[in-house]
């Protein structure tokens, strides 16, 4: 018999707010977290907009010197999720606690900043903290240290599917009996000229520099690429039986997950969406939930011309034409490795509260988008189950099904 896994804690810090409550409120209100980059270095870039954190991370000054910003935001989100779950005094055996938190690019800003130090001042001035700051498993490791997690600390990396994939692996870790509780999610903070220039060189980013709040517009005819955001999302997953036994508040059940790979191109999505379709179908099968009960989708939809359409094709094939779709990236921007985790939180809260957050900026929908997208305004409705999709460069596809507990 499969072990039921539920969500008992949520934590996030995003361009919309410093915690889950403020982020969720901003989403329901349809606010954008995107603004102009006012840093001096931005002037020469083709892309001069991004979603900075709404609230700077609160990490002790000395500890912060030893942590990349992506690690800091991950720890902030994990602390919130841990407190929310109420596990601190629950007497959990550390050997039954795991952490699975990944990032898309890791400590890229640390690497670049220390390269500046190397060039300017020589090798002896390079910080001895550089490696633990830039290693992609650093965020998971810091969270594991703080929570004394000893069942295993892991850091999947699958670009923009990382956050969702981390949650899918966490489900696996609990079902297989390797842990009773797993703290899972994703983190990213790379608002720096080099990553922006690199994504811009791929022509993957929006250049709507004069209208930052309107730049992220999934499914709209005028969409011209994604907008980079920074932040982290972390959730606490645990066995349903032990959550119930300790009287924990339960947000939703993580009913199923599907992960596939395209085998198509290093960065382009398969235009027929085969890999994504299979991921969604696998997640549905894994969940045992009827397609007709999955009435909402928090789409990956990053606001790129090709990607948004490929996802629509996949949703039709795997799910049908009934779900109410949204892309919260229209408000947060694209948080890369954190995206799947933040959007899982939005999906969980949608199920929990019975409300779909809006897709803002959908003024002129692409006519090929023949699904019901919750444009402009939040939509109140019964949501027995909902799907969250994430896809990443490299051809990674992850789909998660959350259901009412």
């Amino acid at each position, binding site marked *: 018999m499969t072990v039921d896994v539920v969500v008992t804690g949520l934590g996030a810090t995003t361009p919309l707010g410093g915690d889950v409550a403020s982020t969720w409120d901003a989403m329901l209100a349809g606010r954008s977290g995107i603004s102009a980059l006012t840093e001096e270095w931005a002037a020469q870039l083709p892309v001069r907009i991004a979603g900075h954190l709404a609230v700077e991370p609160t990490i*002790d*000054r*000395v500890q912060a*010197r*030893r942590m990349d910003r992506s690690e800091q935001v991950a720890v902030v989100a994990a602390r919130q999720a841990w407190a929310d779950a109420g596990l601190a005094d629950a007497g959990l055996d550390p050997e039954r606690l795991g952490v699975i938190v990944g990032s898309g690019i890791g400590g890229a800003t640390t690497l670049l900043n220390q390269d500046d130090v190397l060039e300017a001042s020589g090798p*002896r*001035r390079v*910080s*001895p*903290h550089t490696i633990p700051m830039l290693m992609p498993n650093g965020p998971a490791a810091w969270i594991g240290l703080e929570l004394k997690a000893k069942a295993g600390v892991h850091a999947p990396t699958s670009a923009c599917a990382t956050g969702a994939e981390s949650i899918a692996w966490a489900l696996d870790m609990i079902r297989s009996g390797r842990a009773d509780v797993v703290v899972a999610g994703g983190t990213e903070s790379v608002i720096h000229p080099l990553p922006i220039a690199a994504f811009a060189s791929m022509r993957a980013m929006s250049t709507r520099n004069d209208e930052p709040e309107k730049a992220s517009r999934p499914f709209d005819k005028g969409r011209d690429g994604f907008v980079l955001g920074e932040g982290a999302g972390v959730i606490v997953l645990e066995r349903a039986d032990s959550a119930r036994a300790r009287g924990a508040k339960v947000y939703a059940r993580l009913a199923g997950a599907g992960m596939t790979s395209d085998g198509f191109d290093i960065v382009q999505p398969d235009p027929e969406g085969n890999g994504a379709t299979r991921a969604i179908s696998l997640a549905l099968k894994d969940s045992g939930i009827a397609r007709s009960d999955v009435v909402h989708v928090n789409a990956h939809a990053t606001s790129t011309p090709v990607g948004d359409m490929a996802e629509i094709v996949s949703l039709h094939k795997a799910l049908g034409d009934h779900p109410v779709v949204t892309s919260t990236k229209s408000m947060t921007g694209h948080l890369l490795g954190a995206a799947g985790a933040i959007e899982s939180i939005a999906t969980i809260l949608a199920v929990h509260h019975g409300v779909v957050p809006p897709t803002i900026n959908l003024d002129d929908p692409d006519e090929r988008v023949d699904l019901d997208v919750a444009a402009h305004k939040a939509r109140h409705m019964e949501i027995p189950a909902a799907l969250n999709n994430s896809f990443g460069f490299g051809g990674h596809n992850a789909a998660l099904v959350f259901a009412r507990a």
Partner: protein
Amino acid sequence: MTRDEIVAGLAEILEEVAGVNPDDVTEEKSFTEDLDVDSLSMVEVVVAAEEKFGVKIPDDEVQNLKTVGDAVSYISKAQA
């Protein structure tokens, strides 16, 4: 520089790098045992001290600098 001035300079570095309370920095204190400075932070302290006091502290020497007083003596001799 007097020994007291060097202690004060080290205290500043230790506060910045490792969050050590400057009042705790006295000559008899051990960096690792008393002030809780870990090995990576000690590397930072040494590099910052080289810059602040205009001296060279080779890696071979660092293991001999157990206490704040050891460091003060080394720096003061190197400056002379």
